[in-house]
């Protein structure tokens, strides 16, 4: 008797995106951060956003400064070129990278120490130049890598583990970014993956500097009672401005909502960020309203999350600099070295 083996069901192939790549293709090396670190939650959403948008990993440049947050580019998109630069200076390296190759999709990951203290100057000037890139601040209110000193985003009254109270005012990076003229400013929380992934996608679709300040609790040094950047505190005080959905440019926009309950914000590439109202009216294209809402949240001690401000009309550095379409890094000697007649002409003018 011939036994015929019952064919075992083929293992279920992992889901792929439009490039036929799996989610695993967008991962990096294993994280070496503490278990439960907010940064790892953000890394997961970065991976998810790039995968779902079917972005070619080799077209991405991922950069960072120094600190726990700045280690994370090693943990996503291992096929992309990565650059862990010097403390607080990632914006300049990102600017140079963009100058050399404006076709790259640039994402920078920084922390509150890296951005709000040593890197405040470069952060400001990056925004002023409006270099197209996603700039994520993984904000936990402390210096994790040097064992828990206050950072400049620590709230007044917040305490360290040993009970030391912060008396100095906090720098609100979103408020500052709006003041500096940033065209895309959002805040989120590592504990709200749905909101976070939608905002990362929208930031990727924005042609200009997109600042995303994400409260990302430090489980080791700043997750205690008395901290205003703990999971518990953030969860309790989180006040989302709206419920978010991201509709990429290649998908049909459907209208299945009550008029007046939803606002679609159009991104440069034709994608939309759909804002579903939650109780109150908020217009993210109104700079004054954004400023007021942020100040009000300081007063109330709440964590205001969502798309705080968006200005689609702000020209990017690239639009203003009249570059050839080809990346400068790809230009040939024929394109880069002027002909002999040019040197002759210059020499003649000097005789």
């Amino acid at each position, binding site marked *: 008797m011939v036994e015929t083996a019952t064919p075992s069901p083929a293992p279920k192939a992992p889901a792929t995106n439009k490039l036929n790549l799996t989610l695993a293709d967008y991962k990096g090396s294993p994280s070496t951060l503490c278990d439960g670190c907010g940064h790892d939650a953000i890394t997961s959403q970065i991976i998810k956003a790039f995968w779902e948008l079917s972005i070619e990993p080799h077209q991405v440049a991922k950069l960072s400064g120094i600190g726990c947050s700045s280690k994370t580019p090693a943990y996503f998109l291992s096929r992309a070129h990565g650059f862990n630069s*010097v403390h607080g200076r990632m914006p300049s*390296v990102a600017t140079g990278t963009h100058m050399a190759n404006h076709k790259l999709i640039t994402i920078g990951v920084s922390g509150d120490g890296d951005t709000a203290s040593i890197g405040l100057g470069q952060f400001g000037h990056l925004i002023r130049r409006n270099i197209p890139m996603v700039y994520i601040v993984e904000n936990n209110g402390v210096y994790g890598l040097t064992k828990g000193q206050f950072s400049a985003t620590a709230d007044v009254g917040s305490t360290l583990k040993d009970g030391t109270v912060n008396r100095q005012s906090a720098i609100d990076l979103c408020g500052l970014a709006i003041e500096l003229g940033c065209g895309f400013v959002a805040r989120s929380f590592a504990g709200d993956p749905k909101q976070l992934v939608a905002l990362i996608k929208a930031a990727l679709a924005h042609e200009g500097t997109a600042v995303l300040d994400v409260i990302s609790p430090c489980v080791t040094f700043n997750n205690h009672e008395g901290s205003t950047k703990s999971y518990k505190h953030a969860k309790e005080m989180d006040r989302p401005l709206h419920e978010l959905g991201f509709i990429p440019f290649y998908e049909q926009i459907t209208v299945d909502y009550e008029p007046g309950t939803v606002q679609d914000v159009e991104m440069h590439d034709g994608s939309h960020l759909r804002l579903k109202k939650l109780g109150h009216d908020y217009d993210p294209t109104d700079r004054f309203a954004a400023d007021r809402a942020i100040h009000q949240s300081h007063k109330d001690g709440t964590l205001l999350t969502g798309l705080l401000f968006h200005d689609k009309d702000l020209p990017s550095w690239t639009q203003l600099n009249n570059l050839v379409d080809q990346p400068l890094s790809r230009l040939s000697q024929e394109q880069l070295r002027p002909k002999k007649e040019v040197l002759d002409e210059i020499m003649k003018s000097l005789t």
Partner: protein
Amino acid sequence: MKTLARDSKDMTEDKKLIVNDFSIHVATVNGSGSQSSNTVLLRSIFQMGIPVSGKNLFPSNIMGLPTWFTIRVNKDGYIARKKEVDILVAMNPQTAIEDVKELRPGTVCVSPIELNLDKIRDDVKHYQVPFGELASQATDNVKLKKLVTNIIYVGVVAELLEIDQAEIDRAIEAQFEGKQKAIDLNKKAAMIGREWAKENLKKADPYKVERLDLTKGKIIIDGNQAAAIGCMMAGVSAVTWYPITPSSSLCEYLIDYLHKYRVDKDGKNTFAVVQAEDELAAVGMAIGAGWAGARSMTSTSGPGISLMSEFCGFAYFTEIPVVIFDVQRVGPSTGLPTRTSQADLLSTYFLSHGDTKHVVLLPNSVGECYEFAMAAFDLAERLQQPVFVLTDLDIGMNNWMSDPFVYPEKPFDRGKVLNAEQLEKAGGFARYKDVDGDGIAYRTLPGTEHPKAGYFVRGSGHNENAAYSERPEDYVKLMDRLLKKLETAKQYVPQPVIEQNKDAKVGILAFGSTHWAIEETRDQLSREAKLPTSYCRVRSLPFTDGVQKFVEDHDHVYVVEQNRDGQMLDLLRLEMPQLATKLRSVKHYNGLPVDAESITTQILEQEKNV
């Protein structure tokens, strides 16, 4: 005896004429427009075929402080600064008395009559000129009167020295190109000065020019402009900078040239420029651009170099090409920001924390500013590391005569860069692996269309695969390979220029702008002290074998440099300790470009003590 101008003693009495060999020192107030007039004077002599050089000794100020311009005319082609003043044009009332007091007897002094400088000294030859009155003849415009005064002294000096009026006119046309009104006014004013001098001054000094044929085909240019041309011809595509004297004009010239000559047929730029918020950002951008595959550069001076220190160590350790110009000035801190120096040598060679040694190029001339700018981009990409070009204020901002620059025949060296096809064939790559045994690994550029192209740059310890590593053996391997690269660099950097004199037991070693005084010093030593010398001009760091051999071949070697501590001497002692006792130091560090006489005197003094 009265010492009025026209009656003062005739200085030519018992002297022969001195033709084409003197220096003119023009003292003015900065911001008064004297720079244009001085350039006209310089160019008109140059156009007569006579070797000439000009140095601007200016204050760190925009308007109102004293400034001096020296023009050296020399038939033998010596173009270093000359210490002595032969002709003073004392236009600045603030400094006139001091300026005149310092003159040697017999010097010529052209001055406004109302300064009454003849009352200060009667042993110099005064030519006193009613500049105010003459300016009124040239223009009714009160604002312009001050400016035309400067061109009037050019007219007076032209008459005294017998500079052709046609050459003055031509120089004015070149100086004010495209501004017909300015050309007309300046020509008129120069002529008023000349005519007045002809009618009212009795030539009573020995100095004059005579047409030669030694500048035909030559150009006049400053080093910053020359370096800018070099950068453009090298195909620079990312320029990131922060203004600082004396380097600002390098990037300013470069940006102008790029906008003129590096726009494609569709009107699009083949370059990008950012004026950064500080030097830290400037070099960070240049490094980012170098990593991503552009030919990137920044330009600065000493204080900026200090600020770039951390990033330069990073780029050295992570092996990213970038070109950095340092147009040296006197420091530390602001120091004397408008004076020249060679005191950044050590700080640049070792720039940053940890073990670092950089490749440093040391041009001596405007020609080498052009050539080394091009070489620097090739070196940076070949070696994958920062390459510094150290010039100084004297080369960078002063006018130098030069042969025209030669169009580069050598194609770009873009170094070891793998594309997608090569990656596919090789099945991947290890970013920091020494495949070829020269210490230089292969790199890929961001955006390369291959799943194995990506790698991670980190300032922390890493292994051959660019993965994080704190293993002691990985670190040692990496550091040793970086040192090997420096060894490899020796075959690519500009070699020293050595003039071996078989009769010489004494050698002179110098670098950069000091060269011009050395040429003259060697002639002085041989002529006046019968001391033949050999000469080694170091053109780069690290030292190549030729430098050591030169020291070995001589009884002793004078290391001549423009800094207080003898930085080149220190470096030679450090790298060739067995030869340390052969080395002697000659230093000049007062902020003025070094002159031959200062060097000759110091060498002869030390020779006495042998």
